[in-house]
């Protein structure tokens, strides 16, 4: 077996040194009734490296993907540009095959990259501090709700119905075993009506969670929410699905958000059928001690040189155990390195261009819609809801687009039960060219 260095001679010599006769003796402490017959597992025969490549190539060929289609799918995952350099950096064995930086002297590379990530993601979201990642956006949202309970010592959570339904479901699920109300505020439109959200806030409320741009891609003024939160001493939590937006639009931090959470997948991380992605978690510095997850901090070494360590560990499970701020241990560290590399390559200018192109593609699409298809009104970033005359018409369009190798969008009922099946969530990124939009529109006309 090519991953195992020992020869049988090595094994014999080692057994001899240990003082046992054979390998089985090393397992004598496991009651014999639990020993299974070696080789009896219901698995196929081991494959050579070539065999593995063939197997996966064959499986991969059965899938359609963003490289051989045009992808207008969003809903939390987006087909953005993944620079070759990002993949190169995270393929380097020193980053890829290291564990969590428990021995900082020989993990300064990971640690400095984390520190740079924390700095840049805090700046992009307009916040003071960041942790070193959560699993992904939905669990990050749930962790924000839990943190707000600790900070405020209150237990009621209010969440807007325009937050990605998956973040809502996961958050509700995390909170459902704990005391306290979970209030979802229906919006009655494909957008966010802050007045409805604000009307639900009371003095028992620990936090209000909204999404910006919201699940439907709509962008709106968050300022009234800050006032309402101040009036009731509750935390303002802002979620997002596509962090590229903040290359262009005002950051949640600029509106005074207390905690900002969401997906950093847009920062050079492939869609990979749902993961690994990057859960972003940033907040105000005053709440630092209640923050979940690992953080990297600056310090000096014995010679007085600048260096980095994981810090504030007393919040975490390995020290605080049942009183920890979260149970998270392994996080998405490598994805922070990817995001740091990506942001370094882009800079402010590149991030702005990516966002402008993503938004411009949607504008173009909406401007060309035939009269039988209606887009949600108001300011949108790179995602919106299209409404068709009927479900059949919509499905005919999806099918026509598929013939042209276009994934036209996600039927909204996939996210929201009990909704009429005639709506389509469409997203654009800088990977969509003008021709792609034209072909999508052409498919709409053919299917009309």
């Amino acid at each position, binding site marked *: 077996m090519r991953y195992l260095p020992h020869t049988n001679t090595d094994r014999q010599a080692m057994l001899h040194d240990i003082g046992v006769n054979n390998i089985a003796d090393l397992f004598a402490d*496991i009651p014999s009734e639990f020993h299974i017959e070696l080789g009896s597992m219901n698995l196929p025969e081991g494959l050579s490296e070539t065999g593995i490549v063939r197997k*996966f*190539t064959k499986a991969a060929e059965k899938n359609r993907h963003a490289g051989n289609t045009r992808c207008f799918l969003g809903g939390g995952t987006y087909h953005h540009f993944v620079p070759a350099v990002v993949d190169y950096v995270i393929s380097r064995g020193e980053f*890829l095959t290291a564990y969590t930086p428990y021995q900082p002297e020989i993990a300064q590379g990971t640690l400095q990259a984390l520190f740079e990530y924390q700095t840049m993601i805090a700046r992009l979201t307009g916040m003071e501090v960041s942790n070193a990642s959560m699993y992904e956006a939905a669990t990050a949202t749930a962790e924000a709700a839990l943190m707000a309970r600790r900070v405020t010592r209150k237990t009621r959570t209010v969440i807007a119905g325009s937050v990605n339904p998956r973040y809502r479901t996961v958050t509700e699920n*995390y909170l459902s075993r704990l005391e306290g109300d979970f209030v979802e505020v229906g919006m009655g439109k494909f957008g966010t009506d802050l007045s409805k959200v604000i009307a639900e806030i009371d003095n028992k409320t620990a936090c209000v969670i909204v999404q910006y741009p919201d699940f439907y891609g709509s962008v709106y003024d968050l300022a009234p929410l800050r006032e309402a939160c101040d009036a009731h001493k509750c935390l303002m939590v802002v979620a997002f699905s596509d962090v590229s937006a903040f290359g262009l639009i005002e950051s949640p931090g600029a509106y005074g958000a207390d905690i900002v959470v969401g997906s950093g997948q847009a920062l050079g991380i492939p869609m990979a059928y749902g993961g690994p992605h990057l859960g972003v978690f940033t907040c105000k510095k005053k709440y630092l001690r209640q923050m979940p997850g690992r953080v990297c901090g600056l310090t000096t070494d014995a010679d007085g040189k600048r260096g980095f360590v994981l810090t504030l560990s007393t919040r975490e*499970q390995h020290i605080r155990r049942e009183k920890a701020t979260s*149970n998270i241990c392994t996080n998405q560290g490598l994805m922070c390195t990817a995001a740091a590399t990506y942001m370094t390559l882009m800079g402010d200018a590149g991030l702005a261009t990516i966002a402008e192109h993503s938004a411009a593609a949607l504008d173009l699409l909406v401007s060309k819609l035939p009269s039988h298809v209606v887009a949600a009104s108001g300011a949108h970033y790179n995602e919106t809801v299209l409404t068709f005359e009927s479900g059949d018409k919509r499905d005919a369009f999806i099918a026509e687009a598929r013939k042209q190798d276009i994934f036209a969008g996600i039927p909204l009922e996939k996210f929201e039960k009990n909704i009429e099946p005639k709506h389509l969530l469409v997203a654009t990124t*800088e990977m969509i060219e003008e021709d792609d939009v034209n072909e999508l529109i052409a498919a709409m006309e053919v299917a009309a």
Partner: protein
Amino acid sequence: MSENKYSATSGIQQEEPLLFEHAHEAPESINLPGVKGEVSSDLAAFKRKTPANIPGLSEPETVRHFVRLSQWNHGIETGFYPLGSCTMKYNPRVNEQIARLPGLAHVHPDQPEDSVQGMLGLLSELQGWLAEIAGFSDVTLQPAAGAHGELAGLMMIRKCLDARGEQNRKKVLVPDSAHGTNPASAALCGMYTVELKSGADGRIDLDELKKHLDDDVAALMMTNPNTAGTFETDIKEICQLVHDAGGLVYGDGANLNALVGVARPGDMGLDCLHINVHKTFSTPHGGGGPGAGPVAVNDTLKPFLPVPRIVENDGVFSIETEDEQSIGTILSTLGQSGVYMRANAYISAFGHNHIHQIAQDAVLNANYVLSKLKSVYHVPFEGLCKHECLLTDEWQNKHGVKTLDIAKRLIDLGFHPMTVYFPLIVHGAMLIEPTETESKETLDSFCDAMLEIAAQCEAGDTQALHDAPLKPIRRRLDETQAARKPVLVWEG
């Protein structure tokens, strides 16, 4: 200098500033794809008033910056990494290659099912294999890491007890040797924990367990082999006792590497088990993650598995999103698919004919290291170990040397230290997990280093241990300063 025996040298190590400190202005705009046009006036009203202040470097500078940083790291590709409880084994390169195939890497999670049959097939296949290897009836791939798996498992246990009308059961028994995520997950699940004091042999003490079994018990969380690296030989009786008391048994599968292909936790009476695929199934740990924490369950817990789930009908895969009894959803997507591609490839390479060699060589290596070191380091729990061995610094203490010094000295000799100060049940713990992908030559070299350190202690020649490490780009870092005045972002 004895150091020449070991791999560590001090070659050129480049200093590298923070990227924010590179002096020059950001380069001209880069050529990016997409629709070039003005954004709508609706959206323009929301434009950022000030840029985020992300400096940006040119492509060659970016590459050099991160390559230099990478060179300050020690990874499993660089050298031995015997971090106990973490199973740092070689991460096959072909797994990286296949995970990057466009048909696997650039697939959107909401593509229509008929366009992802290859992906669903690989995931479903892995699900079946994990159930087989762990000895359970089914598996969920949704949990994103071990701790997330603990939460999923406990949620299923909660739901199962609720279904039995036993909402009052909220006590979770956790041995004092358990990993911190165990009690933290129990708390997150709305339950409270009671710590079980380990017996004199480091194992679960049956009398102590019995003392705490009553009508409040929801579950016992146990790790087998335990975090001291020894097998819980009473496992059958332990599970029986908990079941008789009306509770369920949660298995922390972080140490599954000791059993792969040789014995199956599901056969021993556990109700569920999380699997850290970033440990046992070789997916790279990435300097902190990502991992994945699939949970295997028996028939008792199967009805409560999370959704969405992959189901197969006549070779066609589809995704089930609703189920009355399910605990619901704990992640935005089906799971960390990219990680699972690599795990599938790892198991594919071994197959039924080689899979048991994982546990065999892992256990052989740990016992070999133990046999070489036990005469000079204190072994708190006598006997065979499984895939990792536990030592302490008791004998070095009398020379003023602590576990931390030994760990830091190993760095100067070219090795990543073992896990230190865990488990908490012994003073000055050193938990060594060599894994199956290390050669005898590497193990011998590491043991020589450990013997040499012990000899230096005996000889009172301990200065090098207190000063260590001297060779890496940084020496011991001041953790107190970092925690007293936290600086988590660059303010320059």
